[in-house]
């Protein structure tokens, strides 16, 4: 395999489409590829299969890291990857450049999601943006007052809710600490929470180790988070908008806020494997999922803002997710894989790479 850091692997982008192969294999977050088998009313795959004749098989993964490992198997044609996975996939040559001209619906995607550092390299697009969302601050309105507006609720003031603070369980959460430090310790000089040099990184890790004392539990699946807030086992911590929506529908006393420091977030990208066995069906899928209707269905079901401008015509909850709100979106630091070549453009220092983030995360949890 390729081992040099920034060589954009995956060979050439496709220049024209051929006949569809009759099948496509997709790797995605749970809830991204629903064919009605879990709930007959939730289905945006059957339409695709009817239209293109490509039969879909799918596997879902639990964390970005799992997705990266799974893509190495070469079993998948298409992957929906978050920003903390995309660069790794590109660097390893597991995914190919995408010719967006072959995807008519690409035009309808919000511009603020196109050609970003997590879905393109040197201006070459590597995929189609799917949905996006922010990692917000949620709190229990009965227990937490006054209503917090800053991440300090889970960092410097975490001791007030000791044992009932929660945080997202992934190395990428270190970036949340960096976002906080960016605002509160400007002398560290953090420009981008995904480009941390040794000292910046150490400060973030220390902050998280201090927070660890007060963390009740880390969460990665949202059933766990919902339960914890409903029962009062957690009262403050990171969350996703969709979780708040569920809680609100069950009359739980919770509220979310996009804190003043800004937040981390994700913008997922549909990518095509560099050795895809069914490239034409893969392109067909990328076009299909970028279409307003399918994009609306998929993002609504998962609980995030759509990437397609017109998708909100098919959703009535767009407001809750601040869809299309470019100002809101600009406060989000989208997940990006930390690599040694600092993504903020610094060249005088080496940044701490993701492998070290992973080790640090294990040590933070202890």
């Amino acid at each position: 395999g390729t081992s040099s850091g920034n060589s954009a692997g995956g060979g050439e982008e496709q220049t024209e489409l051929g006949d569809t192969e009759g099948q496509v294999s997709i790797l995605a977050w749970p809830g991204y590829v629903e064919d009605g088998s879990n709930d007959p009313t939730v289905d945006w795959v059957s339409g695709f299969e009817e239209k293109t004749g490509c039969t879909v098989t799918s596997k879902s993964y639990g964390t970005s890291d799992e997705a990266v490992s799974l893509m190495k198997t070469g079993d998948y044609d298409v992957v929906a990857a978050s920003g903390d996975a995309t660069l790794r996939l590109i660097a390893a040559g597991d995914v190919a450049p995408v010719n967006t001209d072959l995807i008519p619906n690409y035009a309808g995607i919000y511009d603020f999601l196109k050609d970003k550092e997590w879905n393109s390299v040197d201006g070459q697009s590597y995929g189609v943006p799917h949905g996006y969302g922010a990692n917000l601050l949620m709190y229990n309105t009965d227990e937490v007052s006054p209503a917090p507006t800053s991440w300090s609720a889970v960092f410097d003031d975490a001791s007030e809710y000791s044992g009932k603070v929660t945080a997202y369980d992934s190395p990428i959460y270190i970036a949340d600490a960096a976002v906080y430090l960016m605002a509160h310790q400007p002398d560290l000089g953090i420009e981008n929470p995904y480009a941390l040099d040794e000292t910046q990184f150490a400060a973030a890790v220390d902050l998280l180790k201090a927070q660890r004392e007060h963390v009740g539990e880390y969460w990665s699946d949202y059933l766990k988070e919902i339960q914890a807030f409903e029962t009062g086992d957690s009262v403050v911590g990171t969350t996703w908008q969709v979780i708040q929506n569920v809680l609100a529908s069950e009359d739980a006393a919770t509220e979310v806020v996009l804190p003043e420091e800004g937040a981390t977030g994700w913008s997922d990208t549909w990518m095509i494997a560099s050795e895809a066995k069914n490239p034409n069906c893969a392109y067909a899928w990328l076009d299909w999922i970028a279409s307003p209707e399918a994009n609306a269905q998929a993002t609504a079901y998962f609980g995030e803002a759509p990437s397609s401008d017109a998708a909100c015509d098919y959703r009535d909850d767009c407001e809750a997710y601040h869809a299309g709100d470019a100002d809101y979106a600009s406060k989000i630091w989208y997940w990006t894989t930390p690599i040694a070549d600092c993504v903020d453009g610094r060249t005088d220092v080496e940044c701490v790479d993701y492998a070290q983030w992973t080790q640090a995360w294990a040590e933070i949890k202890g």
Partner: protein
Amino acid sequence: MRLGTSARVTLAIVTGIILLAVYVPLFVVLVNSFSTSTSLSWPPPGFTLEWWAKAFESQGARDAVATSILVAIASTAIALVLGTLISMALQRFDFFGKQTVNLLIILPIALPGIITGIALNNFFRTIMGVPLSIWTVVIAHATFCIVTVFNNVIARLRRMGTSLEEASADLGAGVWTTFRLVTFPQLRSALLAGGLLAFALSFDEIIVTTFTAGSGVATLPIFILNNMFRPSQAPIVAVIAVVLVVVSIVPIYLAQRLSGSEQTHR
């Protein structure tokens, strides 16, 4: 054993309490399957039959059950064959390295599943270069199921002794005929008991399965795991669990009956 009344009653009460404690979480699951809360919150805010209806409509759940049954049957079948062979070898013969072979059989169950899982994952993918599929799951499951068959069969062989097989040979039956007409019928209930446990182990295995299942292979535990990450699906999982527990009475009862009736006839 004849115990004093107080000891007997104490034991009965302790047993009762333990069983009660064992069933409390299951009761929670049962209640949740009727709960209007999608997040299994307690106490349930209201009751509904919606999940039961949905569960029975869910193609994914049905497919997952079918996949799990297929995997469990296939790996149990392999385990039955291999387990029987190896228990006959270990019970009926003395040979160098017998202890090692014995350890070899126990190892897949004694080592934590995650180790078995990553070892096999690594082996299939990077060493053998075979893509993960339902069959890699079957191979993995069969490996750790061998021990349950082995233990049941070897205990039976030990108790059975060799005289029945000798009697059969004595009356003119060759080794195949002896196995078909004498050994196998004697092993049947041990195979059933071992097979049932193997089936249960495979059916509920999640860790090894996670590492050996190919894309699109969703056994029931995988399906459940995935659904735990989806909104509005948790109660369906509760329904499935309740149905499984209830349905499981049949095979357990049958196995009990079969081995029980055999005991009284000895």
